[in-house]
């Protein structure tokens, strides 16, 4: 066990759960042999190219593809007219309501181009260079329109409208005038005004955050092979091949059963690969050409045309008593959705105050479209944004009443039974324990020098459950294959193998975990929402239990006794009668599979619930260079309630990864648009992600408060770690400089400007 693990129950000990074996996908990845989305090449494969809008906002008057079609080597050309019309209808739950009228227009523009990089048409040709040339021959007549980028400007009465008929949802009575505000929502509890009247100190502040990209290393890529009989195979890099199948089928008008999607290895997703951009286009080009087609984005395409998370404009007001009791919290959260409705503003509202016991709360949210790429999920979507504002104001409150910021949070920490703004009461503990881990951490007592400051912040995320499938096959030599439908982003194959080995009682090395395609495993929801170890893990454990039951049955047959007369003990069948010492090992029973009834397999599907939320608390120390405005992170301690770490190294990796992305969000990352609404920094040279030399060692403290609804106590760990860093760093800068930074990124120019005020 790692020194930085804090266990709240010391009773249960496991053989494999909590160990750190080598990941099964490690060798192919470090030797460059793993196959990613762009690596597949099929016989006769064509190369696709998408023509993208050079304008931020323009009406498409005409598209002439004749010259492209006539170019030798071009096999197919498509526009949005090659995709079926979709009904204008919001389908599904509010936060994730899908309107395929919008989705198909994001895949390929119809009436208007709504952002620079918006797909207009596509070609497939026998070489990439011919495809490039053909795309350049497509003639598009645009009527350039005024554009709007900023969320506050997009909400102004005189803002250019992306959709001339969009009426804000969630306002009763409905407005009569169209706007860029897609939706207004409000959540409240208690009496907000009466709450503030009880406060000794009330602090309110406005904040802005920049849209930031998930910045996965691997650009989107796929290959589609559409056959004459209507069956289509797709290989793509995504966070959910079942999701890609469903979205592609809807967009191209195909049956689910006619599509088979195979997951490639994935080079990062962080939420951004839960949506489709290329697959419907590749399938359509392939259908028209009668040959396989590969499409892949360049880095510039990724920045210009795939989803970042929302930027936001917020106002937060919090009231506290002198003893530190928080009595009221209020906020307005305006989130950029990009060019189509659907920001994570609801999550931002519901997570904003979730770690705290606050009797009077309100959150008002706005979902706002503007001429930017459609926002996509990014690690705990919405929660980090509101956390930046709320956790900054909490820091100001702590300072105003002279209280340690950890003590303020701990005094108000939610407990089991605390009501939430979402409605339900908290059913799980874990937050206070993360604060206590920081309070007891030796680094929290390290003295700071000149221009240095320490900042604290916390975060909350729901975590996910839902549908997952797993199949186990026992081989004749006693090895076991574990197949799931969850693309492996964070080491889930190793975690699945660990849970199977633990349940079966066999050695980890005897288990091989794979990710199966949509034709080979039952439906499995995306690898997202921090759900895989919990939900898919539950399916694996349940299937493993079925295998154990079958092994007992086979052993009973071999011995000629009743099944009840056989027990399973650490991977070995034994007679229930204590006086009988004979045994049958897992391998011995597997070898007799044919004689005892045939292959030993088990499949299990779950719709897992009771996932338990994630809580994170972090502090960091920074040093600000007053001459350059550069912020150096001196140390970073990140405590997180992880339930139980199945593979602690990957849990630490998730925590550290979330912090690193949060540091980038805090200090440097932003989309820089010029006066024409065009992105000036669509590459990693100018869009500044943190690199190793920017970062200190991030001390990941795993707090284990086991989740009783998972067989081994696991909770989702992949997202909540990104919620606190922006506020923690802002709070540290405030301590170091006396300046409260309210806009992200807190880059050197912006910090220098604040210091010179």
């Amino acid at each position, binding site marked *: 066990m790692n020194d930085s693990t804090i266990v709240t129950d010391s009773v249960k000990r496991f053989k494999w759960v909590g160990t750190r074996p080598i990941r099964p996908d490690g060798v192919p990845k470090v030797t460059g042999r793993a196959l990613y989305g762009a690596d597949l090449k099929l016989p006769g494969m064509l190369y696709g190219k998408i023509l993208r809008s050079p304008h931020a906002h323009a009406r498409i008057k005409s598209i002439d593809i004749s010259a492209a079609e006539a170019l030798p080597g071009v096999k197919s050309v498509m526009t949005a007219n090659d995709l079926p019309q979709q009904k204008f209808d919001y389908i599904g739950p509010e*936060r994730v309501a899908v309107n395929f009228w919008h989705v198909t227009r994001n895949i390929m523009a119809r009436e208007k181009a709504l952002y620079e990089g918006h797909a207009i048409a596509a070609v497939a040709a026998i070489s990439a260079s011919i495809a490039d040339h053909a795309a350049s021959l497509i003639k598009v007549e645009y009527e350039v329109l005024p554009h709007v980028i900023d969320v506050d400007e997009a909400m102004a009465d005189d803002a250019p409208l992306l959709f001339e008929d969009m009426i804000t949802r969630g306002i009763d009575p409905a407005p009569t005038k169209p706007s860029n505000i897609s939706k207004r*929502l409000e959540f409240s509890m208690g009496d907000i005004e009466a709450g503030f009247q009880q406060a000794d100190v009330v602090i309110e502040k406005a904040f802005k955050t920049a849209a930031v990209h998930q910045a996965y290393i691997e650009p989107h890529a796929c290959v589609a092979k559409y056959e004459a009989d209507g069956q289509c195979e797709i290989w793509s890099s995504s966070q959910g091949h079942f999701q890609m199948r469903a979205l592609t089928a809807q967009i191209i008008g195909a049956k689910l059963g006619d599509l088979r999607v195979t997951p490639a290895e994935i080079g990062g997703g962080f939420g951004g690969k839960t949506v489709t951009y290329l697959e419907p286009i590749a399938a359509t080009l392939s259908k028209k050409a009668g040959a396989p087609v590969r499409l892949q984005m360049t880095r510039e395409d990724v920045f210009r045309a795939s989803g970042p998370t929302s930027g936001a404009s917020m106002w937060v007001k919090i009231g506290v008593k002198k003893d530190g009791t928080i009595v009221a919290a209020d906020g307005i959260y305006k989130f950029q959705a990009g060019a189509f409705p659907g920001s994570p503003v609801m999550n931002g509202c519901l997570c904003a105050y979730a770690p705290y016991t606050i009797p009077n709360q309100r959150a008002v949210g706005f979902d706002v479209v503007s001429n930017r790429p459609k926002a996509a999920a990014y690690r705990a*979507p919405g929660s980090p944004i509101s956390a930046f504002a709320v956790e900054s104001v909490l820091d100001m409150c702590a300072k105003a009443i002279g209280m340690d910021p950890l003590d303020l949070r701990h005094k108000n920490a939610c407990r089991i039974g605390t009501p939430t703004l979402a409605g339900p009461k908290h059913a799980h503990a874990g937050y206070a324990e993360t604060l206590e881990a920081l309070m007891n951490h030796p680094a929290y007592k390290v003295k700071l020098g000149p221009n240095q400051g320490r900042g604290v912040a916390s975060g909350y995320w729901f975590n996910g459950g839902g549908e997952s499938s797993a199949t186990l096959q026992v081989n004749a030599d006693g090895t076991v294959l574990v197949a799931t439908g969850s693309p492996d982003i964070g080491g889930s194959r190793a975690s699945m193998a660990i849970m199977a080995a633990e349940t079966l009682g066999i050695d980890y090395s005897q288990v091989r975990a794979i990710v199966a395609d949509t034709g080979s495993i039952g439906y499995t929801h995306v690898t997202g*929402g921090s759900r895989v170890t919990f939900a898919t893990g539950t399916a694996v454990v349940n299937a493993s239990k079925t295998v154990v039951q079958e092994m007992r049955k086979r052993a009973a047959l071999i011995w000629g006794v009743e099944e009840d007369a056989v027990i399973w003990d650490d991977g070995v069948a034994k007679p229930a009668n204590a006086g009988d010492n004979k045994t049958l090992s897992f391998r011995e029973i597997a070898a007799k599979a044919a004689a005892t009834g045939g292959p030993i397999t088990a499949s299990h599907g779950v719709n897992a*619930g009771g996932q338990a939320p994630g809580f994170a608390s972090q502090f960091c120390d920074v040093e600000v260079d007053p001459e350059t405005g550069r912020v150096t992170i001196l140390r970073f301690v990140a405590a997180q309630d992880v339930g139980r770490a199945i593979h602690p190294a990957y849990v630490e990796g998730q925590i550290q990864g979330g912090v690193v992305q949060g540091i980038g969000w805090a200090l440097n990352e932003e989309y820089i648009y010029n006066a024409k609404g065009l992105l000036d920094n669509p590459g990693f040279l100018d869009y500044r992600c943190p690199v190793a030399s920017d970062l200190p060692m991030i001390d990941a403290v795993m707090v284990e408060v086991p989740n009783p609804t998972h067989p081994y106590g696991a909770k989702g760990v992949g997202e909540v770690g990104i919620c606190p860093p922006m506020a923690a760093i802002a709070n540290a800068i405030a301590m170091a400089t006396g300046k409260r930074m309210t806009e992200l990124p807190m880059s050197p120019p912006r910090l220098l400007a604040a210091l010179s005020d």
Partner: protein
Amino acid sequence: MAKVVFTTGFARRYTSGVREFEVEAKNLRGVLKAMDDLYPGLGEHLEEETTVAINGEYHETGYFQPVPPGAEVFFIPRIEGG
């Protein structure tokens, strides 16, 4: 009996603003059926558009989840992560 609670927005859309109900049900299917009896069509909306929290534990809205006596069953818009 179980207490069924809706968000304000959901109640405004489907139950004339009424947010809380008492229903007799052993599992979530029983809750959905009881609500559908009160407001025809509501069961389908609940199934397709919400996440449910039973005594604070979040689940996808289905039929099989048990509803203990006295449980608070809270329907909220579904959450999706990254």
